[in-house]
């Protein structure tokens, strides 16, 4: 009896929190058929928003992949003073509210802050433009690649690389040919997670982007802005498109997850 009660409560919980809202979005999106959906998704504003989203996510994921693998190697294979602090800082970035992250970035890179002012004099605007949004997105997704890669790196150890050294491989050759293929599934998993997080980021990006329509507006910002400005059709359609992308990445994650790097 208790078993069924537990199952029922889990189902009801999911129904009200997940299935119902997503279902309603689908229903609202297609309430007037497919035509308006295609029309709103192909409007210049929507296309631009998706382009900005893709751009920001691409750069952020790229940076986090390189930085993530490097940091994971550092944490797993080296001992240095401050290692525990670094370890804690990495998780901090996901624990802090994205809005706070955005504000902090403005305080450092804003036009009237020292660093931002210095960059601004050289023609680089960080805040209210793409670089700031990339920074914000990197910030909120820092740990994802590191935490996916580090345990596998720990597991495979350094002996395979050392064997490669004695066979004549330079350290970077040994890393690329022996270690990287060894962590490829974990890395792919981390990259897909980071991508999902980057595509869906709202808070930090909202603060640093300045929400300039058709300039720094991402897909998430477009949903919010359209909804406020009495254009629910575009808001629903965009939200639906993002849900489809999210489900796609989830499927990808699940395809990658069962593949064990370590046998």
């Amino acid at each position, binding site marked *: 009896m208790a078993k069924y009660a537990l199952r029922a409560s889990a189902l009801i919980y999911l129904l009200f929190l997940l299935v119902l809202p997503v279902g309603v979005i689908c229903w609202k999106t297609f309430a007037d058929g497919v035509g308006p959906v295609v029309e709103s998704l192909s409007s210049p504003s929507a296309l631009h928003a998706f382009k900005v989203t893709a751009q920001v996510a691409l750069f952020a994921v790229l940076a986090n992949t390189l930085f993530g693998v490097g940091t994971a190697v550092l944490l797993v294979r080296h001992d240095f003073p401050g290692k525990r602090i670094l370890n804690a800082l990495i998780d901090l970035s996901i624990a802090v509210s994205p809005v706070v992250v955005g504000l902090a970035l403005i305080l450092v890179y804003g036009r009237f802050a020292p660093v931002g002012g210095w960059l601004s004099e050289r023609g680089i605007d960080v805040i209210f433009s793409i670089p700031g949004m990339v920074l914000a997105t990197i910030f909120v997704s820092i740990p994802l690649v590191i935490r996916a890669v580090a345990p596998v790196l720990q597991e*495979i150890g350094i*002996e*395979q690389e*050392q*064997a*490669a*050294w*004695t*066979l*004549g*491989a*330079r350290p970077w*050759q040994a890393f690329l*040919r*022996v270690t990287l*293929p*060894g962590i*490829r599934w974990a890395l792919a998993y981390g990259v897909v997670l980071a991508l999902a997080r980057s595509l869906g980021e709202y808070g930090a990006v909202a603060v640093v982007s300045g929400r300039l329509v058709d300039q720094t507006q991402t897909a998430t910002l477009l949903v919010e802005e359209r909804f406020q400005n009495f254009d629910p059709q575009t808001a629903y359609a965009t939200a639906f498109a993002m849900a489809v992308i999210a489900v796609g990445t989830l499927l990808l994650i699940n395809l990658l997850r069962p593949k064990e790097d*370590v*046998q």
Partner: protein
Amino acid sequence: MIRVDRVCKTFGNFVALEDVSVDIPTGSLTALLGPSGGGKSTLLRIIAGLEQADSGMIEIGGEDSTRVPPQRRNVGFVFQHYAAFKHMTVFRNVAFGLQIRRTPKAQIRRRVEELLELVHLEQFAQRYPAQLSGGQRQRMALARALAVEPSVLLLDEPFGALDAQVRKELRAWLRRLHDEVHVTTVFVTHDQEEAMEVADSIVVMAEGKVRQVGSPDDLYERPASDFVMSFLGPVTRVDGELVRPHDLTVLRDPTEGAIGGTVQRVVPLGFEVRIDIVIDGVPVWAQLTRQEARRLGVRAGDTVYVRTADHAQVRSLSA
């Protein structure tokens, strides 16, 4: 020749090697033997360039290699846990060193096939390491190390992770391989039987120091210390002397030079029989053949007289 000259190495407070000097002649098959934590693996890794000595010098083939990175030492290294490249087939594992050296493809194919034949893995070329047994993986690791024609082959407890049966087979096989390939080979082991069976020459190490160097016979017959004597084979103490149990003669009647004691237990162990005796309250054990034991016909509680055989090698205990 490999020359290790006054090498020291510490890890934090732990002294792994203390002023170690040893020469390993070209073409020999040498065992580094000793209890674990005695520094033998560290010495092997320093010869390979995987660790740096704090002080001292390593010379390989007359060349000072102390600061040469492992890539350019031309050594083959075999790890205890194989260090197989898991995402590569057996063929590509063995080919790795040659590919790094940009050897032409046809030549790589020929050499790898030759080596796989040498290690009896020719039908496993397209398998992955996970599909091989431990013994097969270790043979693959050996072929991989030999592929680049190293001037020195270093093996770190190569059979340590294998079960007893496979271990015995691989020992004999390594000996035969060395007779065919003649590459200067150094292997680390803590198993004295393995060292005695396989090596031409044994370096006994303990607590970061070289205790004795010599042929297996030398070490067994003329150990330089109590430690070496007890590490290389069974020993027992009689009347303040360290003796091999098979060098003890057990008699029923009092004889000149023999000491009386009481038999505690007679333990038949196949070909040999072990007799536990107490002499003046001190336990001693003697190793007899089955026939000797039958002729003697003693049982627990009997009084016997023990003396060391004339040819026996005896060490007086200092303490």
